[in-house]
């Protein structure tokens, strides 16, 4: 039996994420500070300055440049990392496509924060939902521990030879990023066993020059390259499940694959949520169960690839479902809601409602989720804004 040096301590989500990157043995970091992400890269910079982490840290003038620098370093076969938030992520938008299109398995942390105007630094998932179609996998964590472990699992999944797509790992602003929780720091030797060194097949090699970022024609392979990204996203579903299971076994954790289910086995009604709202929803589920309502919770961990098959399986015996989103598509409903209804279309015909909560960091209270559960129980379908004031 190997000696395992796991260490339980208390830290913020941002510190946990920084330790996740350290455990994943990242060799290159480039970032631009933005609240509430700043303390992640601050922590990593201090680790490098104190010789606790053997990596290169490059300061740049913008988020666009940060991801461009990480793109270039990863392309030399070096495991690279960056972190951002909100407007910074939006500024990276072009480079997001370059990274996924070049099939670079970069992992990036994003602290979910609202997009202005007005300026607002609080929790809101609109920033990453905006990046849905960039070819990045997206994971939303619910705890500091999960945020740390997701960085490590993220590299393992992204670097799988069947996947080779970048991954965004999310934490809700302040609710995770700046809140301290108990976190177990993983044993480095065990992590090394789980996550081997990066071996990038196509990388910049002076001895074997090739063209990167070249152009392609309508008759070339452009269309095939894009289709291959979709195929890989589908293959990622299996890889995510396998790698999460492997992690669970090695580290005695209990992460769901693409979704996490809570009291769903005999449920008549289902709440579906993503990120920290799920913690409040879980509490409400327990409360309503005591009152005799058979309700359960599905927490979406992966928004891309979206767990279409899991959702179909989970909702087949459900009478009605409510989808809670901390983002909105102007002119429609919540982003997760539209994914869920398209998953169900033509297969399962139940009322599904969209609930918009916590926009711009507005507190999502227990009574809000209770109100949502009430609406779901009435088997209505529609789009509802929760805890919103009448201002005109």
């Amino acid at each position, binding site marked *: 039996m190997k000696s395992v040096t796991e260490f339980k301590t208390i830290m913020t989500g941002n510190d946990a994420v920084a330790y996740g990157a350290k455990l994943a043995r990242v060799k290159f970091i480039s970032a631009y500070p933005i609240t509430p992400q700043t303390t992640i890269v601050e922590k990593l910079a201090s680790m490098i300055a104190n010789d606790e982490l053997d990596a290169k840290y490059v300061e740049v003038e913008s988020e666009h440049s940060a991801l461009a620098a990480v793109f270039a370093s990863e392309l030399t076969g070096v495991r690279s990392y960056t972190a951002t938030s909100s407007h910074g992520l939006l500024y990276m938008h072009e480079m997001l496509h370059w990274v996924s299109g070049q*099939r670079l398995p970069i992992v990036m942390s994003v602290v979910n924060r609202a997009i202005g105007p007005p300026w607002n630094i609080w929790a809101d998932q609109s920033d990453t939902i905006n990046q849905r179609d960039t070819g990045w996998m997206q994971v939303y964590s619910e705890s500091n521990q999960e945020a740390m472990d997701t960085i490590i699992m993220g590299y393992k999944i992204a670097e799988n030879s*069947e996947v080779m797509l970048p991954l965004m790992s999310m934490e809700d602003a302040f609710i995770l990023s700046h809140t301290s929780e108990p976190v177990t720091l993983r044993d480095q030797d065990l992590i090394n066993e789980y996550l081997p060194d990066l071996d990038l097949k196509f990388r910049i090699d002076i001895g074997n020059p090739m*063209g990167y970022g070249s152009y392609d024609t309508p008759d070339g392979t452009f269309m095939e390259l894009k289709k291959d990204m979709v195929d890989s996203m589908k293959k990622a579903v299996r890889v995510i499940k396998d790698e999460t299971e492997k992690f669970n076994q090695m580290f005695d954790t209990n992460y769901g694959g693409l979704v996490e289910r809570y009291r769903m086995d005999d449920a008549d009604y289902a709440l579906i949520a993503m990120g920290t709202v799920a913690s409040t929803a879980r509490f409400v589920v327990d409360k309503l169960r005591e009152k005799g309502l058979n309700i359960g919770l599905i927490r979406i961990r992966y928004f891309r690839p979206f767990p279409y098959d899991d959702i179909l399986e989970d909702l087949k015996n459900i009478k009605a479902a409510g989808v809670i989103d901390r983002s909105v598509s102007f002119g429609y409903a919540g982003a997760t809601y539209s994914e869920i209804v398209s998953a169900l279309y033509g297969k399962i015909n139940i009322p599904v409602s969209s609930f918009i909560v916590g926009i711009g960091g507005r507190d999502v209270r227990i009574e809000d989720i209770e109100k949502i559960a009430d609406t779901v129980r009435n088997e209505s379908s529609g789009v509802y804004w929760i805890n919103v004031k009448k201002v005109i």
Partner: protein
Amino acid sequence: MVLVPVSTVSTRNHPTDSWRIQRPTIQYDKCIRCMICWKYCPDNAIEIENGDESAPNERIAKMEYPVINYSFCKGCGICANECPEKCIDMEFEVIE
């Protein structure tokens, strides 16, 4: 395995001379071999050759000199603009 966009076909096989409207010409008898044109060319279309006969004097004749690769020069004129001796002429291309 996944499809990765990597090209093995060199851009050397794709000449861009037809893009050029103006053609730079170096007057080698005035050129002092400072290589500023080579440094500034944004397209690496100026190459370096060993010693030249047509140099203004024997000392310069032993020095390396710049040669414009007209297969890739796009005629931007930066070399002519930067040349301290003003010995690069820009002339309109003539289609015969």
